[in-house]
């Protein structure tokens, strides 16, 4: 085997790019889950974000507007989930599945005339001085805005739950919605907010996929990324920095797998393509086996419907 064709620093840099869509989506889901909402519609919101951003970018030639619209798209889809689960009190698992099926269909419908087109390139931002540091410069300081933004969101969410009063309220709602209600907090309103935020971030992640990571539109292009984001939240035990690490490890595996395929090794292509999913299962098993001993992390009201009684 010959690995020397793989440039190490470029590999790490593109690993970060590969991880960014999942990272963004998982961050959104983390906030939603912290407030007690299990939204299995991440995949649907991501792909809808991917197509909305793509269409706008093609039509306006402005990727910034595209990213904005991809998060609005994700938010729109999330608002359906919010209405169905928070106002009509429908089962969150079933509603999340419905959202994914709906999002996949809707994006395929909208994207029919957009296959095979290339969007306007989204420029990288070379951070002055830092970008010129050998190795590290390439790895860390020559990325585009969204990559930096995703890392900023990691810090933001860390701060939110660590130090802010609003974050505390979100946690309280997720831990025990009845107590939060008794204290006078509006559980449904807060969950509405976290669901929409989750949708915006998932949509943005999807937009990054179709505008930068690939970059073009194909039907079903998320290929399970939304589900992997859900698994990452479990892996990270609802902690933003662990999520960052998890997403980058996962990005690494995806990339390695693609690179190995490109190298034309004797390993079967299908076996390599299934590796990210197998790794996800392995990680889930590892985390749940460990969690048996210490089940403190998961929000107590996760997935439970609040009836406001």
């Amino acid at each position, binding site marked *: 085997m010959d690995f020397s064709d793989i440039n190490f620093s470029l590999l790490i840099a593109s690993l970060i790019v590969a991880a960014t869509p999942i990272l963004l989506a998982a961050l959104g889901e983390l906030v939603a889950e912290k407030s007690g909402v299990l939204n*299995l519609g991440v995949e649907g919101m991501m792909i809808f974000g991917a197509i909305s951003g793509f269409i706008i970018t093609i039509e306006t030639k402005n990727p910034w507007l595209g990213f904005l619209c991809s998060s609005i798209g994700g938010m729109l889809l999330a608002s*359906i989930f919010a209405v*169905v689960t928070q*106002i*009509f*009190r*429908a*089962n969150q*698992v*079933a*509603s999340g*599945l*419905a*959202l994914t*099926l*709906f*999002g*996949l*269909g*809707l994006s*395929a*419908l909208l994207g*029919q005339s957009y296959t095979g087109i290339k969007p306007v390139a989204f420029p990288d931002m070379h951070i002055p001085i830092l970008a010129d540091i050998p190795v590290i410069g390439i790895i860390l300081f020559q990325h585009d805005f969204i990559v930096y933004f995703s890392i900023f969101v990691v810090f933001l969410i860390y701060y939110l739950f660590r130090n802010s009063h609003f974050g505390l309220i979100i946690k309280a709602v997720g831990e025990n919605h009845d107590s939060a*209600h008794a204290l006078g907090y*509006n559980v449904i309103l807060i969950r509405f907010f976290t669901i929409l935020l989750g949708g915006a971030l998932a949509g943005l992640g999807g937009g990054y996929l179709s505008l930068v990571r690939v970059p073009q539109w194909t*039907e079903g292009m998320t*290929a*399970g990324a939304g*589900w992997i984001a*859900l*698994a990452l939240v*479990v892996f990270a035990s609802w902690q933003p920095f662990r999520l960052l690490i998890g997403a980058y490890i996962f990005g690494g595996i995806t990339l390695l797998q693609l690179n190995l395929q490109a190298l034309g090794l004797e390993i*079967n292509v*299908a*076996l390599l*393509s*299934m590796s990210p*999913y*197998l790794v*996800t*299962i392995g990680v*889930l*098993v590892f985390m*749940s*086996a460990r*969690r*048996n001993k210490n089940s403190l992390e998961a929000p107590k009201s996760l997935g439970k419907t609040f*009836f*406001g*009684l």
Partner: protein
Amino acid sequence: MLKIEPRKNRSNFLEVSAPVIAVILTMIFGGFLFLSMGKNPFEAIKLIFWDPIMSPTFSEYSRPQLVIKAAPLILIALGLSFGFRANIWNIGAEGQYIMGALFSGSIGLALYPLDAWFIFPLMILGGIIGGIFWAMIPAILKIKFNTNEILVSLMLVYVAEQILALASVGFLRNPEGLGFPGSRDLSKYPSASNPELIANSGIHVGVICSFIAVVFLTYFLTYHRLGFQIKLIGQAPKAAKFSGVNVNYIIIFCLGLSGGLAGIAGMFELTGPAGLINIDFNVGYGFTAIIVAFLGRLHPIGILFAGLLMSLTYVGGELAQFMLSIPAAAIQVFQGMLLFFLLSTDLLVSYKVSFNLGTNNSNPKSKSE
């Protein structure tokens, strides 16, 4: 704000009418969807819901298709519904469906061109085992490590799709297929084929199996201890434990049942309508069946009707695609809408809902004595 109180007693009328309301709402909103695409909504709805059954031009082709497409949906949804009742969320039926087809297909292809009566039954068995095998992975991981079955079963769909691809271009490829992907056509191998039993009716062994399964599982759900225990776990897990229900056993049972039925559906599809194993063998029945299960209110009889209705949207959707060039994806959106409306109307079934305007605090009830 909505004011919500649990109903004191069950309403059979609402349980039946809620899905009907959902279907009507979907037709209305679907109509707007078609209108926004510049199509005549009335014509589109008529093409989807009416013409496949009643139109003299189309029904000859459509009616058999209706049955052919409903059979796998009903089989898979029946299995899923038992798990969903017990809050065991197998959403990887698509993968189990593929594995059922692969297992049974491998048996059939291994025995080719032997002519024997036992090949078809053996393949059915292979389909069941393939589906169960794939479903046992999330089941055992859930029991052993409390791993989330939703994510595991779903990840396994992607794995199964890769194995399917591997099989189509590799170990199951037709040696006489000039290097094209895909296996031998099993529907043309008499010992392994699943032919139409009555000409132009669409009815094959799988269709009959799905009807038998509906009857049997209705009885099972109502009268068998396991059916009761499944309801118990879903509604009150603590009461189930108090009653002595073995939760692990129920997990194995529910995932096994849904896996087995998905596997058998894959087998019938492979040996009949599909014919051969190829990369595009699976068309999403495993996911649509989730909608079917909920649309049927998780009850076997309801699933029978829901499966036929969902099949109608497929067949009618094809017609609409053909006649009005409404893309297939629009039908998927349509189906997704149906599920949303259904889940929302569910609230009306078990809760009494009233609007009280002007106050922003939902009135806490129930705990006051």
